[in-house]
């Protein structure tokens, strides 16, 4: 019987146990928690492989012993002192007996021990993981390389064992192969976690560690369940020995052929014919590995190409340093460039042609893009700045030495635009030039706001404030050697903090109220004064008219008098009498007239000259009216 698979299993056992020790050491050396679950999984895979190797060893030696016994019997067919009388497995000190005892007692004990160990390790690691501080991004290139190399090596080893386990009588090796394969996948996942941490996603590494701890616990529980199921499994004397420590989960994880078979069966079921038996399926199956290698080669060849976008420029590094001018220079513009493959030459991309932007005074997104009001937060978070406050009554600077300097708070939203002007300074001067610029700009706003009155920042001095901040940002950026040019510093918003914005708006409202009251007074004046002017003019004009009438009337009256006097002088008595009677006639034409006959006043002559006279003059309703002939008739009545 070939011993290579047995030795491979032994190699897997020893290497896995050594890897477990190395991982335990690596946990301390590298600082990544991923080493802890990998150590447990390596140990589990090593013990599984050791059990498989021992079973393979006993089986091989038992088979060889049987062959030797058969040869001896052929050489002395008549019997001898050492002739076998019963079953070889019952002979003491025989390898067959040892194999049977191992299969009966040792092999079933492996699974519960491994299960308990895995569950305990997962429990302890889960508690340790929960107690860790929040993860921080860290470059773990050595750890990622270690995990990747270990994973790929174990993947090859596990695949080798699984393939050999398909041979008749080699089924014991399958547990070792699947355990090595599952551990290989765990190592590759750990490598991905380390790379993610280096790329700035430490949570991925932490999550990967938690996932591996969970996988270890799951495998442990499965081992214990396998042991319980093994107790109730019906077995006959000739039944093949089972492997309760073989994980079905691991087998599913690391045996792609199982997935392929499942997929092929599904396709066959869906299409109604043996799709997996077609030429195309066979071709794909045969060429999968070469295609994989070809793809890897193509991917590696692509590292000889650099394509820079229209907003980018690149620094070509040869073995870590910018390529010398004698070798073609380091600056790469937008477009397609050939270079030596990684890791000999790499390109550091810089957005040198794009206007970059940072901001001060706020964080997060715009809360309401449709309207920007003082009384509502403009952004998810706004940081107010301290400003000085002059004495509101005198606008004077507080006297020196005064302890209580009144302060105000103001919110400032300051966008800062810049562009890269010096690639080498930008790339190699600061790890995060944008963060440095943001810090510088925030300092500038803090400094300028602290030396100004609130209303110098809010009001007419806003332009001066923005200019001072911009000058300070440019000077600081140049002094730090950020390799940038600040192209714009604007005050997008300056306003009182949101909690007191309504008080500031109420002042504006009060100004409106003041203006409203003033305008109401002016409206009253506008209404009253013209009316007064008109009334005065009316009075004056009335007086003028009266005067003119008086003058003309008096003159006319004088002239009339003179004419009448001349007439009177010719016949005074006649003139007076006629004038008197004419006047009486005219005057009494309309009124009601009562003539009292003198001296007897009991007799009253009633002359109805116009209309029916009321019943009585002095006692209405008491004296009956004297009968009259009709309208206009005269009558008399007696009075008591």
């Amino acid at each position, binding site marked *: 019987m070939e011993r290579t698979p047995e030795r491979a299993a032994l190699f897997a056992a020893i290497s896995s146990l050594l890897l477990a020790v190395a991982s335990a050491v690596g946990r301390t050396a590298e600082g990544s928690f991923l080493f802890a679950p990998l150590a447990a999984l390596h140990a589990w895979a090593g013990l599984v492989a050791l059990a498989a190797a021992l079973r393979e060893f006993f089986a091989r030696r038992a088979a060889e012993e049987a062959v030797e016994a058969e040869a001896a019997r052929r050489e002395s067919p008549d019997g001898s002192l050492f002739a076998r009388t019963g079953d070889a497995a019952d002979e003491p000190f025989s390898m067959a007996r040892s194999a049977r005892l191992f299969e009966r007692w040792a092999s079933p004990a492996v699974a519960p021990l491994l299960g308990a160990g895995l569950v305990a390790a997962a429990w302890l690691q889960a508690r340790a993981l929960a107690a860790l501080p929040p993860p921080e991004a860290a470059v773990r290139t050595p750890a990622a390389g270690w995990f990747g190399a270990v994973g790929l090596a174990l993947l090859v080893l596990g695949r080798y064992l699984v*393939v050999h386990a398909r041979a008749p009588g080699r089924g014991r090796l399958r547990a070792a192969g699947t355990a090595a394969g599952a551990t290989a996948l765990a190592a590759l996942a750990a490598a991905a976690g380390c790379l993610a941490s280096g790329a700035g996603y430490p949570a991925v590494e932490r999550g990967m560690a938690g996932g591996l701890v969970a996988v270890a616990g799951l495998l442990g529980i499965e081992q214990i369940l396998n042991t319980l199921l093994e107790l109730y499994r019906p077995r006959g004397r000739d039944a093949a020995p089972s492997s309760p420590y073989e994980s079905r989960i691991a087998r599913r994880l690391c045996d792609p052929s199982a997935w392929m078979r499942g997929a092929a069966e599904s396709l066959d079921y869906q299409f109604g014919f043996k799709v997996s038996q077609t030429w195309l399926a066979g071709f794909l199956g045969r060429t999968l590995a070469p295609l994989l290698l070809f793809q890897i080669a193509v991917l590696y060849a692509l590292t000889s190409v650099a394509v820079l976008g229209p907003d980018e420029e690149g620094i070509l590094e040869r073995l870590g340093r910018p390529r010398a001018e004698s070798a073609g220079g380091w600056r790469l513009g937008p477009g397609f460039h050939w270079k030596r493959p990684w890791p000999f030459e790499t390109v550091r991309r810089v957005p040198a042609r794009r206007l970059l932007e940072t901001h001060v005074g706020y964080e997060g997104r715009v809360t309401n893009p449709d309207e920007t009001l003082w009384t509502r937060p403009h952004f998810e978070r706004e940081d107010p700045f301290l400003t000085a406050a002059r004495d509101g009554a005198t606008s004077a600077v507080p006297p020196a030495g005064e302890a209580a300097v009144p302060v105000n708070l103001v919110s400032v939203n300051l966008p800062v635009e810049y562009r890269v002007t010096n690639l080498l300074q930008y790339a190699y001067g600061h790890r995060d030039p944008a963060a440095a610029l943001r810090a510088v700009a925030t300092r500038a706003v803090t400094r300028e706001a602290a030396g100004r009155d609130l209303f110098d920042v809010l009001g007419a001095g806003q332009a001066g404030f923005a200019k001072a901040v911009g000058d300070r940002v440019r000077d600081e950026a140049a002094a730090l050697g950020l390799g940038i040019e600040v192209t714009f510093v604007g005050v997008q918003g300056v306003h009182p903090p949101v909690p007191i914005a309504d008080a500031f708006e109420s002042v504006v409202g009060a100004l409106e109220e003041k203006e409203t009251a003033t305008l109401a007074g002016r409206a009253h004046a506008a209404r009253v004064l013209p009316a007064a002017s008109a009334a005065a003019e009316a009075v004056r004009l009335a007086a003028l008219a009266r005067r003119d009438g008086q003058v003309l009337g008096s003159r006319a009256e004088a002239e009339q008098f003179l004419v009448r006097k001349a007439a009177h002088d010719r016949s005074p008595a006649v003139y007076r009498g006629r004038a008197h009677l004419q006047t009486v006639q005219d005057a009494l034409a309309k009124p009601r007239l009562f003539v009292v006959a003198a001296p007897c006043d009991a007799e009253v002559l009633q002359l109805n000259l116009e209309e029916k006279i009321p019943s009585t003059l002095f006692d209405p309703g008491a004296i009956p009216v004297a009968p009259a002939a009709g309208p206009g008739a005269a009558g008399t009545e007696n009075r008591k």
Partner: protein
Amino acid sequence: MSGHDHPHPPRNRWMLALGALVLALFALSQTVVIVRQGEAAVRTTFGRVDGAIAEPGLYGRWPWPVQKIEVFDARTQVLEGALEQTLTQDGRPVLMSLYTGWRIADPVRFLERVGTPEQARRNLAGLVGHWRNATVGRHPFEALVNPDPKALKLEAIEMAIAGAAGPEARERYGIEIATVGIRSLGLPQAITEKVFDRMRAERKAVAERYRSEGESEAVRIRAEADSARDSKLAAADAEARRIRAEGDAAAAEAYTVFEKDPGLALFLRKLEVLEQTLGQRSTVVLGADAPPFDLLAGASNAAPAAAPSTGGGK
């Protein structure tokens, strides 16, 4: 039983090639390190420091665990501190946040004393925080916020912190502090609320002042308008009186002609009054001896010279 009794599993040369490639890459990663521009590295052999690698380039090493090359980012990094409370010289609490630009100046010392950038940030935060408290405590509050820019001491505080923390950082951590800046100033939450209350009250006073000014202005304008109206009317009344007086004077001048026969003038005037006062709705009660009604009483024709007696009422 021989090993040749069973067929060999299919040997996949492609898989072997893949495995060989992986192993080669692993071997390469364990023996070669590229230090990039902007990085600093330290080579150790079995944990003992061999020396720093200052220049970028390709460096070989024995595989782990024999040799190890620790690579650090040597570019300037910005440590943005949190808002922390401290006291000024006059005992006023103030929140201050500093940013610190730092870089690894001595990689060997950095590796020995600090080890990782995370730990460096923690150490720097403690060091800078210590000198911040010590420096701010020597300045009054008005040196931090003051409407007179000349009275501010922010730059002096920053320089003092950098000057004090820089040598210590280099000596203890192998770190050079490139710059220290006061990123932001603030007040504790309780005081901030009080500041808001004061600002609110101040704005309220200003608003009330504006409202009062508006009301007083309106009253003044109304009063001025009313006064102007009354003045105009009074002036117009005076003018009217003067004009009427002129009319009276002119009439009096014309009435001098009545002096030629006052009796006749009075008689005519009486007749006018009599005619004008007796309207349509008047009621006149006369004696029967009043002409011409004396005719009703059978009297002879009255002498026209007799003065008529009139009476009436309404």
